[in-house]
């Protein structure tokens, strides 16, 4: 049984209220941080913990905090990115729905560490119930003296606001989020300057994912070193994984980083195996934008080692044979799923969500979607696969924000690993509309690498 830090009390009735949350040890981190620690101590503790950003990129949170510029007389802001809209990811929504106070507590500690007196939680517009839950929780915290003027008699003031977004995927990109928060059109900014220098209203700003901020609470309670003992290598601590697809028990699981992928899929503690006795065909390990992997490559790396749920192990093999942990949106596909259709579906999403600023992403996402649509419905050509790879290559890395990369990777990787299936769609157009390609060789054991 893995250790639980964030979801330990998830099943306690009434944990969404301040009273029950405090009975279970809530808001101790606020008291400890504000009463006994200096702001630098808190940052130092987070650095020691090795906590890495849980939103997708995996940048060390403590490092990000220490980059924050601190000019005299200029306000600093902490913004929580709760614009969770990556297909396959729903961990933040789960956390905010059931334990809103974990996020609020983390926000108070993190704001204190960064010296921010005004902080925002930018919530995706579709999550109206969560916005109400958070607002209610903020009321409660304020009434109990954890927010507002002179928190716990320390002289530290903090106002916390919840800002609903318009429901655009692009506003999950930190600079687009800041634009949107300022009331403008949510177009990503050109970097530099980075938000740590000039972010919200031109002031130094840190933008963190919901889970990263919530993870600060156990780090302060138990100490950074204690937190760093969990996990493996540079992937420390626990991570929420949103498991979905053809598995027996979909849901949000808190895992210790370093669990093997095989365990995660097949053990009863987590996903409980593939539903209806089918076989695993493919996995998207970290939300729709990471490369998709066939069953044999997700369970083992090319070196024959077991693949682990950690930042390093999932990306082992680079883009050739690896993927990424991303935001932890774990989607499993069984033998009945069509990879072409899935890739088209993802491409359709990115086409819809591209902000339209940079030409390669604006035009390229639409182009890829149309070609994939043609393939899926039996009008494809053999040259389409090379065309898609080429278009993906022209988008990747040539855009302002990472949405271009996120749109290109799933397409490029699907063709890299499932080219047979795409070819089959072209050579059997009638059959492709009626039935699926099936499992084929995608779960076969990997060829053993010759000793060099």
């Amino acid at each position, binding site marked *: 049984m893995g250790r639980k830090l964030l979801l330990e009390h998830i099943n306690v009735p009434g944990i969404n209220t301040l009273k029950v949350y405090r009975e279970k040890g809530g808001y101790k981190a606020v008291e400890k941080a504000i009463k006994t620690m200096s702001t630098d101590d808190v940052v130092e503790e987070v650095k020691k913990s090795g906590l890495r950003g849980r939103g997708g990129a995996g940048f060390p949170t403590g490092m990000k905090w220490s980059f924050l510029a601190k000019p005299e007389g200029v306000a600093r802001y902490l913004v929580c990115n709760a614009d969770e809209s990556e297909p396959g990811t729903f961990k933040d929504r789960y956390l905010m729905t059931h334990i809103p106070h974990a996020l609020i507590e983390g926000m108070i500690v993190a704001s204190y560490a960064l010296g921010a007196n005004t902080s925002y939680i930018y919530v995706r517009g579709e999550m109206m119930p969560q916005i109400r839950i958070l607002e209610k929780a903020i009321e409660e915290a304020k009434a109990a003296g954890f927010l507002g003027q002179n928190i716990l008699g320390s002289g530290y003031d903090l106002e916390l606001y919840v800002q609903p977004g318009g429901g655009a995927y692009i506003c999950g990109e930190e600079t687009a989020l800041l634009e949107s928060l300022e009331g403008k059109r949510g177009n990503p900014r050109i970097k530099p300057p980075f938000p740590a220098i000039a972010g919200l209203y031109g002031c130094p700003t840190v933008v963190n994912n919901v889970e990263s901020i919530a993870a600060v609470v156990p780090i302060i309670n138990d100490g950074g070193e204690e937190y760093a003992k969990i996990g493996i290598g540079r992937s420390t601590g626990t991570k929420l994984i949103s498991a979905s697809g053809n598995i027996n028990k979909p849901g949000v699981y808190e895992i210790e980083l370093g669990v093997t992928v095989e365990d995660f899929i097949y053990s009863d503690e987590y996903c409980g195996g593939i539903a209806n006795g089918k076989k695993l065909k493919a996995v998207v390990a970290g939300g729709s934008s990471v490369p998709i992997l066939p069953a044999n490559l997700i369970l083992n790396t090319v070196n024959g080692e077991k693949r682990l749920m950690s930042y390093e192990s999932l990306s082992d093999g680079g883009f050739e044979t690896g993927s990424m942990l991303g935001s932890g949106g774990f989607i499993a596909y069984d033998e009945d799923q069509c990879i072409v259709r899935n890739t088209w579906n993802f491409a359709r999403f990115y086409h819809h969500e591209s902000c*339209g600023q940079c030409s390669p992403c604006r035009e390229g996402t639409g182009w890829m979607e149309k070609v994939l649509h043609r393939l899926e419905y039996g009008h494809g050509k053999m040259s389409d696969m090379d065309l898609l790879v080429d278009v993906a290559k022209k988008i990747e890395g040539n855009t302002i924000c990472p949405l271009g990369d996120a749109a290109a990777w799933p397409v490029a990787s699907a063709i890299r690993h499932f080219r047979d299936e795409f070819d089959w769609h072209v050579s059997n157009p009638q059959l492709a509309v009626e039935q699926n390609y099936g499992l084929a060789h995608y779960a076969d054991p990997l060829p053993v690498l010759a000793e060099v």
Partner: protein
Amino acid sequence: MADKIKVTIDGIPIEVDPGTSILNAARQIGGDIVPPAMCYYSKLEGSGGKCRTCLVKVSKGSEKDPRPMPKLIASCRTNVMDGMEVQNITSPEVVEARKGVVEMLLINHPLDCPICDQAGECHLQDLAYEHGAEATRYEFDRRTFEKIDIGDKIQLHMTRCILCYRCVYVADQITENRVHGILGRGDHAEISTYIQKAVDNDFSGNVIDVCPVGALTDKTFRFKNRVWFTKPVEAHRDCPTCSGKVTLWYKGEEVLRVTARKDEFGEAEEFICNTCRFDKKATNDWVIEGPRKVSRQSVINSNHYEELQPAAVVKTNLTLQAANKEEFERATKL
């Protein structure tokens, strides 16, 4: 003034002021190594970074930190550092990426150049020509829009728009009450004024000059003539609202249109007011300075001063020579 810093672009060193962008440093050198720019406009604050045609490779970050930058970067929005080494046309990676961007820009562009007023002075046309994009791999319907009138003098044809945002920045710069902007997202985004509301400003006509393609056109000039049949002449007048320095485009004795004077990178030197642009179309409104210098390579040059200096392409092509002569006779009959 702070010390000059040294930067090398495609092996050519130059010293520039700190805070200069790579693109502007390249423009100071001039010639073939200047990256093309479809969205950046030096007179418009905040423009640039969007079209991605000006991507370059930074092979050495600076003297202090010589690491190369991991990705290609937009030269219009990246400032030079001391000792920076930049590769533009010497990097195959850049040329390849730029070709990709040109292809992307063209997939939804209507390619209706034969009936487009911008043809001949269109930046996208030049760009496509330079990068040899002679065929497209795009086999789907292009996006289309209805034409919209912005006031009674300007027409917006969104079908041709490449979403460079320049006109939005013009509106931002000339007025606090911008009434036109971008609606929608992705490739269905469009420039719009809510319910065709006119951009009501003395300088609104400048959106026509900044538009790199034929999306925003002058209704007083629409379908009157092709630019290469008109003769550009520099002129000025004493204007109470703007500098009054313009280019007049003559056909015979008639002034067909008035535009701002454009520099070698196609940017207006000074914005002009709507009175000068739309209402002053008689020669006696203006003080003529003399013929405008047009690059020898430009298509605008192809029919003027013909027998003296025919464009290079005309010299070797008999059909073009005949057509050129015929047009010259027609134009000079007046």
